[in-house]
């Protein structure tokens, strides 16, 4: 009671602003000054509390006006502003000791609205009054209900937990039992669960039948000690406990609204369910099962262990990384970023295996052994499942082996349609493997799917593009990630095989689909990665696109494809030049074959000839066509049909340029663009349309620099 005067000052604060924490020191000086100022002024609240704290046992209650008056003062303050924590201690003691009579006991409990926090010592003292056993039953119930209501406001709960046994003893009181069970539910830790307590609760269960509060508490006990008690919750069980806060709810929320910002209390205290019972009807639903292993926990029950599921933040994980307990079902961790972090760190072989077994089994049972019946519900669940796997794999930046081997099996039965986005994504996570396996497990089934499917699926070759970029991503760090059983040359072989395979698919696909624009663009996007393998990924590999891809792109009717091809050729040139230079400088271990250079030069020649030199079908090139045959087509000036002016992709630009230059001319004569300065203007006009790829290509290969400055005329590369 030493600080009651201090309290009084606090309570009389005219602004009504109760300090957010009674013990806060930052406002102390301010308060002292204020107290100085108001010295001598009567403080009714402080005086009332002082009076109430001195009420002794045996005080006459009936007709005691002074008691009544003081009670009223405190009550008014309590309901409007809430009570500071010290006052709560005082009043709770007064009420439960029954010094002011049983009637006032209930009255005090009802207006015991904390402004900020409730000191746990007050509750401990309250429980000791409960043990004295003088209180009438309704007062006991009211007290426990009050504790439940303010539970989240109790400053600290360790002492409360240490008198767990005392609290537990009240479960035998029939009227108190529901509330005590709830309180125990909130307090229980693993060390509190003992065989004799379990037996007691089971006795009560036998007496009272299956009551939700008992079931909930027992379910929690089971979570902590599955070796002592077992229980299965029906699928539609009334979860949680009833609300007991009705008496205080309105006043409490009013006070809290007034003291907003102090402490936020969850109004739905009653549903503070720690463990979510899972439906576990299906394999995939047990993702959140928290049952602990039967065998081990008894050994380390003394050690403080953390369940992976209980961890909320990365910091918590770091702090407790040395005593983490894995769940009984590893499958429950799939999709939890923290758990995956942990698994990746500790590299517990068994844990990963368990996860892999579960995953492999689920995939196998769901997709291979039980045919999906196509109902939308089923598919959406499967879709969610695969998405979870994808999330985990992307998080780990590698695939699970069980998904991988599942995919190999699944590809042979897949219709190319079911869950396509997910399956394609999963495929892109497959790591690179020796070319023999790649052919057998991947290319064969994919080829079949590819050639028998719609153009859209073919466009989904994106997959292979992604796939490759992942491989290249790995390749970026290949000196350290290179698998032990895979030599560098084996690895290169695999990449080469992969690129060739995509080239084959693409050229056949383009032929089948009549050079579909989307497919062509996707293919070119793929080659945009391939052409830069040496420079960007330092992979000593340069693979040219096959003719089936090159020529459709060169003679494409859309300008985007042509521009992309220009860019690709430009990058190839850069890569080859650098490779050549390195090879000459020092004895390089790798050697780019003559054929690659030849191929490149042939393509380059074809491109430069058709676009720049207006002579697309030079005798001796890939696309030599008999002159008589061409003349049959009756196309005038057939050799310049694919130059920068007449190329079907650029034709419209030439027309537009012509119109701008000679707006008055009725007869379009595109040939006049080629004369004098108009040619340079046309180049500038063309490159201003955003054809950077073509621009680069023309600049590096012909030396033409759109009229800026004359560069030395470089010949197309013709080495070696």
């Amino acid at each position, binding site marked *: 009671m030493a600080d009651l005067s201090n309290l009084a000052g606090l309570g009389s604060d005219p602004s009504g602003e109760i300090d957010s924490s009674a013990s806060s020191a930052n406002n102390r000086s301010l308060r002292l000054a204020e107290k100085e100022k108001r010295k001598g002024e009567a403080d009714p609240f402080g005086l009332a509390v002082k009076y109430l704290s001195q009420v002794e046992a045996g005080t006459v209650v009936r007709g005691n006006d002074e008691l009544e008056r003081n009670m009223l003062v405190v009550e008014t303050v309590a309901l409007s502003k809430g009570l500071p924590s010290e006052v709560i201690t005082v009043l709770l003691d007064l009420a439960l000791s029954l010094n002011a009579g049983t009637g006032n006991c209930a009255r005090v409990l009802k207006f015991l609205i904390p402004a900020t926090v409730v000191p746990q010592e007050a509750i401990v003292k309250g429980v000791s009054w409960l043990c004295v056993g003088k209180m009438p039953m309704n007062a006991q119930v009211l007290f426990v209900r009050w504790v439940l209501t303010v539970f989240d406001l109790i400053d600290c709960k360790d002492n409360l937990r240490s008198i767990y046994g005392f609290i537990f003893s009240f479960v035998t009181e029939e009227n108190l039992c529901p509330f005590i069970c709830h309180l125990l539910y909130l307090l229980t830790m693993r060390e509190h669960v003992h065989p004799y307590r379990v*037996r007691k609760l089971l006795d009560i269960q036998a007496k009272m039948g299956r009551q939700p509060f008992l079931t909930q508490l027992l379910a929690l006990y089971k979570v902590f000690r599955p070796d002592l008690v077992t*229980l*299965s919750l029906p699928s539609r069980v009334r979860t949680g406990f009833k609300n007991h806060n009705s008496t205080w709810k309105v006043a409490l929320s009013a006070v809290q609204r007034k003291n907003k910002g102090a402490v936020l209390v969850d109004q739905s205290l009653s549903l503070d369910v720690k463990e979510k019972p899972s439906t576990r009807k299906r394999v995939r639903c047990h993702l959140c099962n928290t049952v602990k292993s039967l065998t081990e926990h008894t050994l380390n029950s003394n050690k403080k262990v953390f369940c992976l599921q209980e961890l909320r933040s990365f910091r918590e994980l770091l702090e407790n*990384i040395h*005593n983490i307990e894995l769940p009984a079902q590893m499958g429950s961790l799939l999709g939890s970023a923290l758990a995956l972090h942990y698994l990746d760190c*500790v590299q517990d072989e068994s844990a990963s295996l368990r996860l892999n077994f579960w995953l*492999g089994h689920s995939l196998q049972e769901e997709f291979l052994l039980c045919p999906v019946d196509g109902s939308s519900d089923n598919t959406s669940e499967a879709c969610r499942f695969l998405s979870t796997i994808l999330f985990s794999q992307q998080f780990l*930046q590698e695939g699970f082996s069980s998904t991988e081997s599942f995919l190999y099996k699944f590809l042979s039965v897949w219709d190319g349609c079911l869950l396509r986005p997910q399956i394609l994504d999963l495929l892109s996570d497959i790591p690179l493997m020796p070319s023999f396996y790649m052919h057998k497990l991947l290319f064969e089934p994919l080829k079949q799917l590819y050639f028998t499917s719609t153009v859209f699926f073919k466009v989904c070759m994106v997959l292979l593009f992604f796939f490759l970029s992942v491989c290249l991503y790995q390749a970026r760090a290949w000196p350290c990630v290179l698998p032990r059983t895979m030599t560098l040359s084996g690895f290169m072989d695999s990449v080469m095989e992969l690129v060739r395979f995509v080239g084959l698919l693409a050229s056949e696909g383009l032929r089948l689909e009549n050079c579909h624009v989307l497919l062509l663009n996707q293919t070119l996007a793929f080659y945009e990665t391939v052409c830069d393998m040496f420079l960007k990924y330092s992979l000593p590999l340069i693979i040219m696109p096959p003719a089936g891809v090159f020529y459709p792109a060169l003679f494409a009717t859309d300008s985007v494809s042509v521009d992309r091809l220009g860019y690709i050729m430009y990058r190839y040139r850069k890569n080859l030049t650098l490779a050549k230079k390195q090879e000459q400088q020092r004895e390089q271990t790798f050697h780019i074959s003559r054929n690659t250079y030849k191929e490149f030069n042939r393509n380059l020649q074809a491109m430069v000839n058709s676009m720049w030199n207006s002579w697309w079908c030079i005798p001796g090139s890939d696309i030599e066509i008999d002159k008589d045959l061409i003349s049959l087509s009756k196309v005038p000036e057939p050799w310049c049909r694919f130059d920068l002016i007449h190329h079907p992709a650029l034709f419209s630009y030439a027309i537009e340029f012509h119109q701008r230059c000679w707006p008055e001319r009725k007869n379009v004569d595109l040939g006049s663009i080629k004369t004098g300065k108009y040619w340079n203007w046309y180049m500038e006009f063309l490159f201003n349309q955003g054809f950077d790829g073509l621009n680069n290509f023309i600049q590096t290969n012909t030396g033409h620099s759109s009229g800026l400055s004359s560069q030395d005329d470089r010949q197309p590369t013709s080495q070696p």
Partner: protein
Amino acid sequence: RYICCWYYPCSAVNTPASRPLTRRSKSYGRSCVEAPSYFWQTPGHLTVLKVPTSRGAAKSQLITNKVDPEHIALLVKNEWKLSYVTPLHHFRHTQLKSYSRHLAAFIAAENQQGVAVEVGLEAGFKVTFTAVLGLAETDEDAETVFIQIQSKPAFAAAADAPKVVWRGWLTCVNGDPEYLRSLPSDFVSLPLFCTSGSESLTTLVKTWFERAFDCNFGSLALNSTTLNWLAALWTGCHPTCNIRHLKLAWSLPTQPPLDVSYTVNPQDAWELWNSIHPEESTDDKIDIKEVQSFINGLETHFFRHFKIYLSAGTLVKVSTALGSAHLDGKIKIGNSDYITTLLTLLTESALLKMPT
């Protein structure tokens, strides 16, 4: 690729150096000691488990010399429904007593939803786990575990013996040694699970196992090749042990479906088999081709009489006095002396179902 490698495990957990390196070389293409990553590592990855194309002839052995005859008697009389199980994590043969208590409590709790049951208190069900020692053939095989559930009705007279309502066993006989060796030591692989009893109890037992040992069950259907093997192997035993008959059942995909039951005189069957695989042949191994031609021989004979190509249908069931096996994964063991051959075949089928 390995973004998470910034943190290295502290001393409390395994360090990479302490792990056996042997198993890594098996998974092709993806092993790396410096940046080990275990997510991809599943034993028996793709290349390890192969369907054998030849195997030894069935040999009679007096199993009762190795195994308690009482235990053998339990295995012989019932029809068993087969399942496969992924390796059991932290299963210990020394803990069977406590497993009995837990499973009993679990069944009781499941049967009265929402009522908690104390573990160890006998409530309606009595569960017994028994280790059937001696059935294992190699050092890698884990010992077979037999589970029996007895029900004790609440109002039964004291004299009434508890009734056995469910039986099941987990076994591994001649499991692929390379696969078994590749598992870490805290796993026990008992891939074959045989059950007999109500489906609901089977589900409960499976659920309990799945929760306790983080394993998964799937139903094990046999394939025609396995049935062909059994037909040949059992027929080969005729000289030493009368097989009484060779009964085969086919299902033909006609409209309406046609079921063919084909019973062969044991002596005739044996003579056919002997003409394909002479008894006195020096090589003890039987090749899958021999098995195939044996079945072809039987089919040809049938065609000669009934003008029906049995090869157009599927072999559904094989049965002799030594035992029977059905395509949908139901078996019966007729003679305990040849139990090893049967269980070897079934263990192999179960291991092939393992998710890799």
